[in-house]
């Protein structure tokens, strides 16, 4: 029963934003977009226990595909988004195949490089990305004549997408695929001795996480209507790591809880004015001291898994 606490908390918060609308709805919308990103990150870093500092690269591919295809070529948002996700998964395949043979720090360095390179491309390839200026006038989500323009409408769409993402993560966790991920995380040697192709499952987790990252990157540009290189900078990596650890790495609810808390904390401390950042930092430290395995693990004795 206690295990339901994180879900009730998240549902309450999102429900409140839906009713209140306005600024709260905007903040929660961004939190939900990040939740999609972190669900993917969690598949790779939580379930499979690998490290990637370069997931922002895949978000950038998703976001810029959406932006360029809709504004320059007049595509509908949905096919543009799908193209971005496929492009990111393809890029992850090309990048992941050689790098996933690297271990530990080397893999981390390689993925960091991918993020930085992608950032440079978005800055320098001006004929397509318009550099620092960015691309504006990106159409909102929609199909044909039906578009989602209101804050609340966008929130509803994002809630549905996050719910589907979490559902996917939960199903993966309880499947043969998820067990193979957890086996790789637990002991590569033991996994291989049981016939599990470790390299293949690392790559699978990487591709999935890239797909979620691209989806989040694309959602962002359609919700905001604008994209620039800074959107997918290194801060995205730091923020998503914070969300993953605060929420609970390797859990299903963790990415959503982490994304909501980390997005709302600065807002909660707005009254502290000059000391806002300080209060935010202190709160994060306290969270990691008192809930080292993440907030979503506080309310359970043991993860119930099928």
């Amino acid at each position, binding site marked *: 029963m206690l295990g339901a606490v994180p879900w009730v908390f998240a549902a309450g918060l999102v429900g409140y934003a839906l009713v209140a609308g306005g600024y709260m709805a905007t903040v929660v919308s961004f939190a939900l977009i990040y939740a999609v990103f972190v669900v993917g990150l969690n598949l790779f870093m939580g379930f499979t226990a690998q490290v990637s500092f370069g997931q922002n690269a895949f978000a950038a591919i998703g976001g810029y595909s959406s932006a360029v295809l809709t504004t320059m070529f007049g595509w509908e948002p949905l096919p543009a988004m799908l193209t971005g996700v496929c492009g990111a998964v393809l890029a992850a395949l090309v990048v992941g195949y050689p790098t996933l043979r690297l271990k530990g720090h080397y893999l981390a360095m390689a993925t960091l490089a991918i993020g930085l390179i992608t950032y440079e491309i978005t800055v320098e390839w001006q004929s397509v990305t318009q550099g620092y200026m960015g691309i504006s006038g990106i159409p909102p989500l929609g199909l044909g004549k039906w578009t989602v323009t209101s804050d609340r409408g966008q929130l509803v769409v994002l809630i549905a997408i996050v719910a589907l993402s979490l559902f*996917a993560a939960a199903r993966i966790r309880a*499947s043969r695929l998820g067990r*193979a991920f*957890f086996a790789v995380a637990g*002991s590569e040697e033991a996994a291989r*001795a*049981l016939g*599990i*192709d470790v390299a293949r499952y690392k790559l699978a987790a990487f591709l999935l996480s890239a797909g979620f990252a691209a989806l989040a990157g694309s959602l962002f540009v359609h919700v905001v209507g604008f994209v620039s290189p800074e959107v997918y900078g290194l801060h995205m990596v730091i923020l998503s790591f914070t969300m993953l650890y605060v929420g609970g790495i390797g859990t299903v609810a963790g990415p959503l809880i982490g994304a909501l808390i980390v997005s709302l904390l600065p807002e909660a401390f707005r009254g502290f004015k000059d000391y806002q950042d300080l209060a935010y930092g202190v709160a994060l430290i306290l969270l990691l001291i008192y809930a080292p395995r993440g907030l979503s693990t506080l309310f359970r004795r043991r993860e119930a*898994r099928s």
Partner: protein
Amino acid sequence: MSILRVEGLTRRFGGLVAVNDVTFDVAAGRITAVIGPNGAGKTTLFNLISGAMPPSEGRVVFDGREITGLAPEAVARLGLVRTFQLVKLFSDLTVLENVKIGTHLHARGGLFAALLRPGWAREEERAVAKAAADLLDFVGLGDLADLPAAGLSYGRQRLLEMARALAARPRLILLDEPAAGLNAEESARLSAIIRRIAAGGTTVLLIEHDMTLVMNTADEVVVLDFGRKVTQGTPHEVRNNPDVIAAYLGGVEIGHG
């Protein structure tokens, strides 16, 4: 009939020869034990057979097929599965989930099955759960299925690792010191379990220090010392072999064991 043949197997680490020109056969359906003092090269021998490291020289033939230098997952796919001297469980997962992972090779569900759960995938999951529960009962851990694997006692962790390896339905199972950390009673139960594994048609090759277990359980014993095969025979023959007595009790052992 031989299911595994090790031929002239040698492994050098720099100047040290851990396994030196070892040749023997493992008879199908039987229990073969590899014994020898610490540092005799037993675990290295297992690593060479299971693909964890390539040999410097020699061949490994499993079921008529050369597997020398194959990756561990490829060796496992052919039906040769091992356990580890230092237990390697998936410690964050439950006891039951550990055994379910062992069934990996005999299920086929991927992303599609995970997300959409078509009928065949649900069927497969039920079969996996049933097989895992049966194996836990087989090793006597049935009541502990939902506990985290890390919470088990050391002896039970060994039994769990064995159940997990059996879930891969191997034709040859390699057990690396299965009795380490077990008390006399547990060790006797283990002996019965190993005999039942062999009776079920799975060939067993084990490394063991516990001489009582080896003498009561094994059909055939291979003795290693300093990386070389000293002798091979039935437990009775080996026990009375002067070379073996020298290896275990002679002056050579003192100062290196």
